[in-house]
């Protein structure tokens, strides 16, 4: 696949998504994002890292436009997908254009079978039954476990299977880009690894770009090409994944390793309060 090969070495100018200095306000009063900018190259995997409440999910939701349903609003800045401004579109239009979000906490349709779950993912497609059936096979090939459980209700499957189901469901819309929110949530380390392996494989063979929000910095930085670190609604640091992994501050705050050896928790907190990264 030449397309995928090209995607592996993206030219710096070929961006699939650009988020330009967006500000998000919930309920007209709560300022959550205070100017976040980021870029995703075509065929790249970009990680969005940060602690609880840093604004990772909000960033993803403002891209997929699920924000309005939660009474949030992008008040400043702009979002472009493949060069077109998309921040006024409905989620439905956006999926048609090729951006789909896998929500935090899986959100499978519990009372539908795994197969029906996957088929709902193809709702926006107009290219006929056979094409959908082919993609269903493709998803089953990526997630053999889903094939085994295709007739069980999604609500009765395990957390890992539900996460696979959610990713598979998103794939069924034939996306160019998947926004993946906390794929590791509540999963055993081994499963997290398995999920990320599949993400990498999808990225390489299907050419799907990924923007993923993660708290598990360690895993995310191993699989992503580039990372952004969010704190209190701002990007405080960004860089190539490898560079970030070697950054002293990232090591200390997010990976739990420090060059100075073990420290008392009190010292760490003190240190963190004094020295903040600024955007």
């Amino acid at each position, binding site marked *: 696949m030449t397309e995928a090969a090209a995607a592996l070495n993206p030219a710096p100018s070929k961006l699939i998504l650009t988020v330009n200095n967006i500000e998000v306000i919930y309920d007209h009063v709560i300022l959550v994002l205070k100017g976040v900018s980021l870029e995703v190259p075509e065929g790249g995997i970009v990680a969005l890292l940060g602690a609880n409440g840093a604004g990772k999910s909000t960033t993803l939701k403002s891209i997929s436009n699920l924000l309005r349903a939660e009474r949030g609003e992008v008040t400043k800045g702009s979002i472009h997908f493949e060069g077109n401004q998309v921040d006024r579109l409905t989620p*439905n239009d956006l999926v048609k254009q090729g951006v789909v979000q896998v929500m935090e906490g899986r959100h499978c349709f519990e009372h539908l079978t795994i197969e029906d*779950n996957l088929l709902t993912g193809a709702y*926006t497609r107009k290219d006929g039954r056979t094409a959908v059936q082919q993609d269903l096979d493709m998803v089953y090939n990526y997630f053999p476990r889903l094939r085994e459980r295709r007739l069980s209700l999604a609500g009765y499957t395990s957390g890992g299977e539900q996460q696979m189901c959610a990713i598979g469901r998103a794939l069924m819309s034939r996306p160019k880009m998947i926004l993946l929110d906390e794929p590791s949530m509540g999963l055993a380390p081994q499963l997290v690894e398995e999920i990320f392996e599949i993400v990498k494989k999808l990225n390489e063979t299907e050419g799907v770009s990924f923007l993923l929000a993660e708290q598990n910095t360690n895993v995310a930085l191993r699989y992503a090409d580039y990372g952004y670190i969010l704190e209190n609604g701002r990007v405080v640091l960004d860089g190539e994944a490898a560079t970030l992994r070697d950054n002293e501050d990232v090591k200390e705050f997010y990976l739990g390793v420090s060059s100075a050896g073990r420290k008392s928790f009190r010292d760490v907190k003190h240190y963190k309060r004094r020295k903040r990264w600024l955007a």
Partner: protein
Amino acid sequence: MNASAIRNIGGWAIGVPLVIALLGFAFQGLASFNSSFFFAWPYFIEVLIAGLLQGVMYSLVALGFVLIFKASGIFNFAQGSMVLFAALTMVGFIEMGLHWTIAFAITAVVMALVAVGIERLVLRPLVNQPHIILFMSTIGIFYFLDGFGQTLWGSDIKVLDIGIPKTPMFVGKGMFEGGLLINSFDLVAAFVGAALVIALAVFFHYTRIGRALRAVADDHQAAMSIGIPLKTIWVVVWTAAGVVALVAGIMWGSKAGVQFSLALIALKALPVLILGGFTSIPGAIVGGLIIGSSEQLAEVFLGPLFGGAIQDWFAYMLALVFLLFRPQGLFGEKIIERI
């Protein structure tokens, strides 16, 4: 079809006649002890059939509830007034001199417009609010439709006659002396109900929109995230509920006249839903049959014990018992809870 489904069907096939026979013997025993009770097998069966057919009429109303509950998790309090509104509109058009088939088609379109209006003005601003808020808004819709229908078409009691035969018939003369008395109108209602259920079941399970409807029912947000447009889905489901309300309105209207009390038959749909489960279309039918037949049987054979008129409350008692032991109903989706 797996083993448990076969076991289920087998259970019903044996269980239902067994329960009916046991009830019969119980009533027979009661009659032999106390002279104020009367029992005869043909009479028992006649009452049972009349009850079942009456139950189908309840099911028709309950179906509308199930549709909306399934797709949006909202208990639509306004279903009763939708029945009334649809029936009033239909009568209005017939009074203008239109043939009933044309009036039916126009009324169906009107119900679709009502659905669009409800989605635009009520549901859309309330996306992702707790269900209780949506439920409250349907109470508002109830009063609006109720008043609006009567403002448009007047509040007189009207006759709706689309030519369904109402003559009683006698069947099974060879089996019983004098045969069994069955109301042919109720029989027609049963066929209409069956047709409606089959159509809806096919729609829900084998079409793209039907699958999307079930998805929306489970999780609004997730459905949005994969590009299912909620507004389209809601318009579709409220339209479907509107058409079901129209059918129910026609059947009830031609049976009992089109008047305000039509809006209140929705109350009889409640125990039906509790028995059958709020999310199951077959459940609405079976629930209706059980409620209809048991309240008729209770009225006729147990009535003297309480001094009569137990038909009005028996269904609710039955529902209460069900709530205690099987809150999701006979066919309701199991409340899935992973531990």
